[in-house]
């Protein structure tokens, strides 16, 4: 009798255990996977534009969610160009003219180095859970990986993309595909993760294809050459003086 009651209890409890986590909880896991106090990364952007393919190399120092400094290393034309993000401000230094330009207003919509990423994308808080509410729209297999399909809606107006659809790897908490939409429902951008690698306890999107749907070309591949989490970064890196050094 006792054994029977235990079985009945287990059967009743089964649907409760099978309930998927909430969308917000999944999004929090995605944020936690990439979140780190300090990061130093070396990356390569392969921009397949309408006329030509260009490869741009950069090194970035990132502190928290709101400060970053990027120095472009190649090609020769872009070498020495630096970009500093301090909170809501973005500065770019051009060595050829020795000018530091604040990127604001409509310039934020410009493509970074002609890629499929805009300055607005760079300025965005990488913690999606701070910007969006999420709900689970279903479960699908994407690139042979079981995924949660999330539908994200902006918490407030003024965010670059009003809504997003996201395929999140259930096991690794990495967004394997994303579709970003305008308020009108028009698809603006897609991202596809082509390769995921492990770095300590984290899963890193090592190779990502960004595609600005409104732009000609085959998209921009963003490859992480190396990444160091919880790195030590000197304080002076996040000051405007670094741009002219």
């Amino acid at each position, binding site marked *: 009798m006792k054994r029977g009651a235990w079985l009945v209890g287990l059967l009743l409890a089964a649907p409760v255990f099978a309930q998927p986590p909430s969308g917000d909880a999944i999004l929090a896991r995605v944020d936690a996977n990439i979140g780190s106090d300090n990061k130093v990364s070396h990356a390569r952007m392969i921009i397949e534009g309408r006329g030509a393919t260009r490869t741009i190399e950069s090194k970035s120092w990132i502190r928290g969610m709101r400060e970053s400094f990027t120095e472009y290393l190649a090609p020769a034309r872009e070498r020495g160009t630096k970009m500093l993000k301090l909170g809501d401000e973005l500065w770019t230094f*051009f060595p050829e*003219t020795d*000018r530091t330009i604040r990127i604001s207003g409509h310039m934020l919509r410009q493509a*970074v180095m002609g890629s499929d990423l805009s300055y607005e994308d760079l300025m965005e808080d990488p913690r999606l859970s701070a910007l969006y509410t999420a709900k689970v729209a279903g479960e699908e297999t994407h690139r042979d990986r079981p995924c949660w399909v999330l539908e994200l809606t902006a918490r407030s107006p003024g965010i670059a993309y009003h809504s997003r659809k996201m395929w999140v790897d259930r096991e690794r908490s990495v967004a394997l595909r994303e579709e970003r939409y305008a308020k009108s429902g028009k698809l603006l951008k897609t991202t596809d993760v082509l390769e995921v690698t492990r770095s300590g306890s984290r899963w890193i999107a090592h190779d990502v294809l960004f595609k600005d749907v409104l732009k000609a070309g085959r998209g921009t591949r963003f490859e992480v050459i190396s990444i160091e989490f919880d790195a030590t970064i000197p304080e002076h890196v996040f000051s405007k003086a670094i741009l002219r050094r």
Partner: protein
Amino acid sequence: MILFLLKGLVRDRSRSLFPVLTVVAGVALTVTLYSWVKGTETDLIQASAAFSTGHVRVVPRGAAREADAPASDLALDGLSALVEELRGAHPALTWTPRIRFAGLLDLPDANGETRAQAPVTGLAIDLVAAASPERGLLNIDRALRRGRLPQQADEILVSDALFDRLGIRPGDTATLIATTRFGSLTTANLRVVGAVRFGVSAIDRGAVVADLRAIQRALDMEDAATEVLGFYADRIYRDGPARVVAAAFNERAGRAGDARATGGHVVDGDAVPVMSALRDQAGLASTLDLARLVTRTLIAVFVVVMSIVLWNAGLMASLRRYGEVGVRLAIGERKGHVYGTLVAESMMVGIVGSIAGTLLGLGISYYLQVRGLDISAFLKNASMLISDVLRAEVTPVSWVIGFVPGLLATFLGTSISGIGVYRRQTAQLMKELEA
């Protein structure tokens, strides 16, 4: 007979004055309006040709399909070879490469921070070379308001309005912030040496005129341009020959593109150069057709209105000359002859009125050609390339166009009113005359 009729007209002013005045007014208006529309059309063609379309323009196929203003990411590569080829194949035209670009002009303060900034549209031309045809094509010497013309590649001219708005002093260094042909943000330091005003609001609002080489370097466009324009030496657009040149070039360029494709190279169809005549660009065909339609409609309206007025004048004259016509018929003059003399009289009125009206219209047109009419207040946000001061243009056609409504209206008016002659009953004539 003609002299007899003419004497009658001169001596009986009530028979000729009102019809002549009507014809003079109508013809003068026709001549003036024709010259005005013609002047506007010519101005539109010249401004469009100089600043945008050339008499023919070569752009990459992708740019021709996408927009009026060529985009720098779809540039004509191998520019030197292309210009050489054009000069060799079509020597009747002057060929000149250009880059049209957009960006921000940023004026730094002493610390290198932004002091003033404004969005600009730019035209990069062969500005510095002594043999360049651009100074003449754009009338740059005449357009210069302040400072001097550039002598170095990194020197630029800005529009007068921009010069004031940004508080520029001649010699100031400004930074152009733009995107390269690959979409990267780029900056270039350029020295502002003068201010220009072309008299075309769409250009004068915020234009930068720079040297081609400086902009090629800034926008990563070595040996490339967004367009190559061709101009006839006398600056007069010839639609037929221009289209023939364009068709011949496009056939050659298409064959070359096919040859490269079959040669195993990757040919981007969007990059193949295509040539268009002025009329086939920027919706100019419909604008020019509209101008022609307006001219023809105006003439048709004047013919109809003047015919009605002169018909009415003829009817009134018939009433007044009722007795005269009756006597002439009574003494045996044939109705056809009476009708013929009335029509002949009206033709004389038409000729005299047309000559006077044409002279008056030409006078007004010459005045408008010299003085023009300033419409800049209406062009503050206009994007059409048209001068701020619209002028009439007196052409050989202006001398003769008034004769069409002048003669046609008088002929039609009298022909209709004169039909009354045939309605007179000979049997009733004596009775009518007795009364």
